[in-house]
């Protein structure tokens, strides 16, 4: 009975959505003339990013600068998620000592493989977030890749421990860096997160003013945040 009702509901919703999207043609240019006197937001970004922000990757310019407040919020969401997970799965000190982390069956091949792979993955991640303003990728992607590397180490080495103290420091400092760069903009440019794009030229590593630096801070923050989440989840005591 419930199944029938749900399927009817789904059919209605599907019809509703299909009806809406039939009126939104796929592949149509909705940006309009990017050099018009008053272009749409997308047109403005496309025509101005190159000169005003000096960043090759327009997505990066949008994520870090034009809509920087969203990204600040997003980093905060991750931070709060890891805080929230820690509080949801919190255990007292004495419980913590007897738990053992989830790990792969210990074999030399896995361990040496992990040891070889970890630096490569970490380097790849760091490369991705340092080049966020030039190539696809950036803080989030690079940070996630680095976290994947840590995950590999966490599950292949029983003895490998993330240093909690150091993690807290990196996490806090990366977050604070983001905000203080924003405040620097407030002082230099009179708006929060304002950019100082005078440095460097397009398509070189040193370009885009504060944008790459902020994205690197985001990268560190995301990497540590995600590693923290994985660490908490891996440390749960499994059922017998």
């Amino acid at each position, binding site marked *: 009975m419930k199944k029938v009702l749900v399927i009817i509901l789904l059919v209605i919703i599907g019809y509703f959505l299909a009806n809406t999207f039939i009126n939104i043609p796929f592949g149509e240019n909705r940006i309009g003339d990017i050099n018009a006197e008053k272009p749409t937001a997308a047109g403005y970004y496309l025509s101005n990013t190159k000169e005003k922000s000096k960043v*090759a990757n327009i997505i990066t310019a*949008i994520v870090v600068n034009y809509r920087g407040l969203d990204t600040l919020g997003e980093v905060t969401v991750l931070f709060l998620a890891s805080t929230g997970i820690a509080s*949801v799965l919190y255990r007292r000190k004495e419980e913590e000592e007897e738990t053992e982390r989830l790990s792969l069956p210990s074999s030399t091949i896995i361990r040496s493989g992990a040891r070889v792979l970890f630096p490569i993955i970490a380097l790849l991640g760091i490369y991705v977030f340092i080049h966020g303003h030039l190539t696809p990728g950036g803080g989030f992607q690079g940070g996630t890749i680095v976290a994947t590397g840590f995950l590999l180490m966490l599950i292949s080495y029983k003895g490998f421990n993330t240093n909690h103290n150091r993690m807290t420091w990196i996490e806090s400092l990366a977050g604070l860096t983001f905000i203080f760069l924003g405040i620097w903009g407030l002082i230099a440019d009179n708006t929060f997160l304002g950019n100082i794009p005078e440095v460097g030229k397009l398509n070189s590593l040193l370009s885009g003013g504060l944008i790459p630096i902020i994205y690197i801070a985001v990268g560190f923050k995301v990497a540590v945040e995600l590693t923290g989440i994985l660490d908490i989840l891996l440390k*749960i005591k499994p059922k017998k």
Partner: protein
Amino acid sequence: MQEEFNEIFLKYHDIISLGVYGTAIGLILIGLYAVLMKKNLVKIVIGLTIIDAGIHLLFIGIGYINGGTAPIFSPGYEDAAKRMVDPIPQALVLTAIVIGFAVTAVALSLVIRLYKHHHTAKIDQIKSLKW
């Protein structure tokens, strides 16, 4: 390879648009079915991630422009701005994916705690509060 696809996208526009929109709406409906019908908490969370995936595909779908290129200036093509696809939906999806991951992680941690407390992950057996 992408240039090649671009031409095809233009040529078989209707099929491709059905492919993108249809898939996205299909994903939303499948996810919704899982959320509404499934009893297992993990399955419900899977349903939520599938709904999210559908919405993200819709975002990218509406941002696409026939014959457009990715919104990145590569060396030598500095005047490509006129042919680029809409960058805003892409930036929004970037944000939405990360937020979706955070929500999923919190949801799963709650599932783990519920399982420890009730020794079951089925919604109809966890009802100290009225569902």
